[in-house]
């Protein structure tokens, strides 16, 4: 986390992190986790969008970056053990 000393992230970095988190969230094999990850990302970024203090922005940015690492690992773990039958919510109703 030495990069945090470089100052607040730029708008481009924040947007890129947001898109990476959403992209990773979409890959979860489990319906509930997938929806939660997408929703929590959007709500989390929206909640913090008006922060002005650079150290606060840096800290939530690095927190989100570590969440991205966790999400990437867990997407792999969940896909290794994905159940053969999906949730009823994912099955198109006739």
């Amino acid at each position, binding site marked *: 986390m030495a990069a945090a000393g470089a100052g607040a992230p730029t708008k481009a970095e924040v947007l890129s992190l947001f898109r990476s988190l959403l992209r990773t969230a979409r890959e*979860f094999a489990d319906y*509930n*986790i997938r*929806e*939660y*990850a997408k*929703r*929590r990302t959007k*709500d989390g970024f929206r909640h913090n969008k008006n922060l002005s203090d650079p150290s606060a922005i840096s800290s939530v940015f690095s927190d989100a970056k570590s*969440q991205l690492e*966790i*999400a990437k*690992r*867990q997407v792999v*773990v*969940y896909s290794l053990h994905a*159940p*053969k*039958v*999906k*949730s*009823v*919510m*994912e*099955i198109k109703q006739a």
Partner: protein
Amino acid sequence: MVSKLLLRKLHQNTSSLRRLSTATAAAALPTYGSGEEISMKGVKISGRPLYLDMQATCPVDPRVLDAMLPYYLSRFGNPHSRTHLYGWESDLAVEKAREQVASLINASPKEIIFTSGATESNNISIKGLMHFYRDKKKHVITTQTEHKCVLDSSRHLQQEAFDVTYLPVESDGLVNLDKLRDAIRADTGLVSVMAVNNEIGVVQPVEEIGRICKEKGVFFHTDAAQALGKVPIDVEKMNISLMSLSGHKVYGPKGVGALYMRRRPRVRVEPQMNGGGQERGIRSGTVPTPLVVGFGAACELAAKEMEYDEKRIKGLQERLLNGIRAKLDGVVVNGSVEKRYPGNLNLSFAYVEGESLLMGLKEVAVSSGSACTSASLEPSYVLRALGVEEDMAHTSIRFGIGRFTTEEEIDRAVELTVHQVEKLREMSPLYEMVKEGIDLKSIQWAQH
């Protein structure tokens, strides 16, 4: 020569027996079709049911799983091994988890004992405490709506010549504070009232009860398994002496829990698990590092997410209740509507039979009554303590909403429930009579 023949015969017999046994085993196991459907216990469903039973257990949060995995892979040491890295890193992880659990309830890490779950913590609190103070204290007060393990431990104490008062609850599920105050005697050793009920979701006035116990000088134990991480708990403000915590109700792993034991003024218990003196001598046995790490991570997450989850779950609960009430009448909420944890909604549907309703709701994972008592045919004792009539008690369904529940799942649950209830009511002669305006209570049923 003879022995070879015997061996071959034995092998043939056992292998055919084995074939037989696997055949019967296969019949009992669910068969997962080629990605098409699941067939189990004679029911065919097209996919995994949507999960609305959060009071029974919660799925493990992926962030919790991520914290636990290293301790199953490379950091597998025993935290009590003092002589090598494996033990040291494991011990560090356990102590970190202890701090995470303690900070969620505003306690000191020295007051947290890891156990195998809230049931074990309840056993230690009730039996352990009373056994320690058995010379001076002979009386325990608890309520009629407690979890089975609390009631069973109290019954066990009764068999050992302790006195137990089971306080009744009001029709909204809350304890009457005056009755509690009157029930406390000079030799009362413990008052045990759960913070949030697992069946009906009512939140007891823990702070007031703590105040009463403090002024009367009685230890206060609360089973906070359902409350942890969902409603804010502060052991100092609520004057709690002992508290049982459970891992798998806060999106942590199953098989771990904790007991909070106050140090000032000191609470002492007789240990239920004897052995090498781990966990301050209160609970011997190797502390399961991965489970404990998961529990700690879950507690830290719960502290961060409590506000967000609560707002969201409240909205989902309103959506569920309003959705059902918009299409159906005769829907009763069991337990107080105001003093309730929003993630637990226990509804009774009049003129409908509970088991048949559950059979029809196979695409929704809900429960009727608590998971512990669902094996018996008796209506739930909690609902009986509320004064709910037998027919309504039989037809109660408990919807559990959690962090991962989506709006679409709520809408689908509403749709399925309404559809099933309407279908059953259409078939019900009792409902026909009610629609014609006949008062069911005034009917004289003729003997045949």
